[in-house]
């Protein structure tokens, strides 16, 4: 039986060096995905690189530009932050859906994104609000949109020696809000069969001027659905617009038949949840 090294670097540079030196090393944040995978024999890393001692990865800061969220900040801290709840209620509710109270004490948004499951709950919510991922690596920092981060089930853009440092979320303007909904057969401790995140902006007259719609668990990666957003923009987010968004989201979904749901089911529910999330986001936007 192999023994596994445990490393706890204190800086981004140190972490990059450790990861670059050992291809089998895995970043560990909360461990709620990684340790489960390790214990069930799915992964056999040579080292755990614990990133929770790196200050950059543990920070939450909110200013005029928006949110900077350290990749290893526990979900519980994100959800308990009232400002985050106010400014990005959809991201907050997606965060609060992860597992249970106990899981949320460990789980991180960075881990949710880097684990790169198509069903990760915070990913569509982050895409909807236009979040950016800040990556550190041997050749310095780079930044890209969250929707471009995940490349397939369990796969992402991170190269050797690279890891996620933080997420940046732009501050929402007036009458802008977001929402996230998922369907699970139970009420908690389950994995999304379908997820939908919507962020939108209304003008003073209540007409939608901008929207982003993202869907999860219905394709190899979470998807940004511009057609669904287009159905909302220019409307008062009325029934017809909602139906249009639902239809576009259903059309964009390319789900599979598996133990968690059928193609037809997921396609239909993608529309239903998109429509509902959009209605909630609009309601919230009207109140801001």
């Amino acid at each position, binding site marked *: 039986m192999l023994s596994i090294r445990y490393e706890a670097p204190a800086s981004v540079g140190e972490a990059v060096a450790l990861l670059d030196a050992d291809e089998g090393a895995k970043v560990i944040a909360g461990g709620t995905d990684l340790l489960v995978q390790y214990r069930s024999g799915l992964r056999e890393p040579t080292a755990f690189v614990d990133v929770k001692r790196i200050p950059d990865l543990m920070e939450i800061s909110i200013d005029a530009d928006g949110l900077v969220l350290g990749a290893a900040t526990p979900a519980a801290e994100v959800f308990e932050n009232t400002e985050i709840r106010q400014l990005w209620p959809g991201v907050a509710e997606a965060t609060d859906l992860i597992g249970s109270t106990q899981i949320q004490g460990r789980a991180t948004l960075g881990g949710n994104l880097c684990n790169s499951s198509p069903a990760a709950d915070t990913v569509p919510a982050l895409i909807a609000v236009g979040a950016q991922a800040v990556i550190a690596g041997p050749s310095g920092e780079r930044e890209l949109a969250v929707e471009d981060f995940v490349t397939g089930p369990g796969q992402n853009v991170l190269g050797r020696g690279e890891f996620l440092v933080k997420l940046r979320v732009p501050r929402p303007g007036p009458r802008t809000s977001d929402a996230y909904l998922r369907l699970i057969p139970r009420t908690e401790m389950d994995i999304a069969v379908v997820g939908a995140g919507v962020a939108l902006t209304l003008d003073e007259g209540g007409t939608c001027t901008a929207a982003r719609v993202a869907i999860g668990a219905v394709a190899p990666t979470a998807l940004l659905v511009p057609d669904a957003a287009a159905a909302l923009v220019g409307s008062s987010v009325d029934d017809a617009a909602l139906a249009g968004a639902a239809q576009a989201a259903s059309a964009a979904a390319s789900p599979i038949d598996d133990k968690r749901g059928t193609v*037809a089911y997921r396609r239909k*529910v993608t529309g239903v949840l998109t429509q509902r999330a959009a209605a909630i986001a609009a309601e919230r936007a009207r109140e801001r």
Partner: protein
Amino acid sequence: MSERKFKYVGTRPIRHDGVDKVTGRANFGADFDAPGMLHGALLRSPHAHARILSVDTRAAEAVAGVKAVLTGQELPKLQSMWMGGAEGGIDFRDIAENCLARDKVLYHGHAVAAVAATTPEIALQAARMIEVEYEELTPVLDLEAAVASDAPILHDDLQPIGATDPLPEGPTNIAGRVEFSRGDVDAGFAEADVVVEREFRTQMVHQGYIEPHACVARIGEDDQVVVWCTTQGGFAVKNYSAMVLQMDPAKIKVISSEIGGGFGGKTTIYLEPVAIALARKARRPVKMVMSREEVFRATGPTSGTIVRAELGAKRDGTLVAGRLSMFYEAGAYRGSPAGPGAMCAFGSYKIPNFYIEAHDVVVNKPKVAAYRAPGAPMSTFATESLVDELARELGLDPIEMRLHNAVDEGDQAPYGPVYGPIGLRETLEAARSHPHYKAPLGQNQGRGIACGFWFNAGMSSSANVSLHADGSAVVATGNPDIGGSRAAQAQMVSEELGIPVERVRPVVADTDSVGYTDMTGGSRVCFATGMAVIQASRDVVDQLRARAAQIWGVELDSVAWEDGRALPANGAEGDHEPLPIEELAQQMGRTGGPIVGKASLTAPMAGPGFATHLCDLEVDPETGASRVVRYTAIQDAGKAVHPGYVEGQYQGGSAQGIGWALNEEYIFDERGEMENPGFLDYRMPVASDLPMIDTVIVEVPNPLHPYGVRGVGETPIVPPLAAVANAMRGATGVRFTVLPMSPPRVLEAIDA
């Protein structure tokens, strides 16, 4: 009996094992370690159906740290011998070959070989290095495929048993068939004004006990074996292991740990003979602990079923005829609960004409084990759904319809015996007058009602009650305590001796320390073992009275026992001061020696349990997701010794039944590999999925028990499948005949 005033029975003391359980101190199966212990691991079959051509263990044996390797060929080869039983039956050859396959693997996950090594990791790694050559065979994965005329055959020598006409000749996967009938079914249906007919299907489901199977086997220098394990029956582990290993049962002592749930699933053995055999080879203790995945893949869930059902009634709601043709998956070896399923199907109603046939069918899936009222939930899902349909067609209130046909004392059960006093009618009346039944329903909500019946078991039990010098007592029985039985037993001792429950220590004794006791199962412990406890306590009381008579110099019948004291009676009143138990106990050394009461008995019959459940369900018509918004379980307990634990049984059975109805199912791929062997995708309800389940305890005393107790553990899982389906019918307008009613299935049906 009914007039008896109880002091301790009917109260809700804190269970004696409670503090250690909630603080984590209690020792469960995997908590025991022995000095010098090795860890065992199993190699399991990657095929659902294959012949084992060869097993090469050399590479595994060469691994450093490996102390023993075992294959199925090394276990004694047993002759097939079927022993029928009320809740199924057993064949020790099958049990042995299920522990370790010999010539064939019959399901994906079937254990093939075992390794004992110094660490669990080495054991697992070495087990994977065992090379097995298989000849793959076509797996038989569902009932229709299994009974097809050209089906691949699991067991070439399978002899069907049971009702013989018509039973297939030649190689078959139909292991048995039972039938029950009454009256003239065709004439009955001809007489009916309305007939409803449907085919119902359920999938294999698991009990989902939280604690995986675990054991430690230690072998002494004298070959005496001690097994620590989690089980529903220490004597079963002892005797079954002795049969499988062809040992003298006296050579095996079993100490059962605390048990983290069983629900019938821990009434057989998987690990113990393997651990003993490994320990014998290695001459060191061996511990084996299953993972959750192993529990799902390779222990005993309950059957998937097909039930073709037909029910006819007169316009006024009188049931006149019923017909059931049922098929139960046995899994890899014979022994599905088709029999009890058939016995219970029409148990709640007076039906003058019926015909029931049920088949036990082997398929390439794990061998089923008992699960709470084995077989009854599936057949009752069919019959209670049809009663509901009839009530709808006839425009009758579903409770009135059921009351109109409900069985009473003196009616004959479908499987023969005549009911004594029973409480079905009382549970229906309690349901009718319950606020739940009158509460208005919201949008997209429906209400379902269903009844359920389970015959309950009696069987053999022993108990010892020993008195301490301070007047406190220990009660020892051989039943692992799953549902609070120790607390109830202490209450019975308290009731008889007249001492507080806190002064009675109830213990689960090992198999060397108490008389033979059948398993904790069949809802029998509070009833049958309780009866032994009462008898043993009365034995103590008689001895205490004799000591008082001796002290007073009077005849035994001049001493009465009341409230923990000997009182002069029959003319001796006034002559002597009462003698409290503390004083008598203190003197026992001088008055004749220690006082130990004992009892051993067999209860041939038990007194059946009936229940009525009410379920309100809300369905999201756009996603098919549903939520139980209100649930009430009403059941006859005869006499609730500890009402809190009786309610716990009602709630637990309801929760399991709701899970079965809505989301739980074994999902297999086309090769027969289970795709959801974990709680993420095997969706049992979590706490937040359910409302607080309301309960009503009805008490129609059971004359077969001194306090009127009847078993309560199993009946609560019988009604929920139909109660939920009937609520779903109300909420959606669709009659669901296939379980589980998971969101995709519900949405598809609504949209159809």
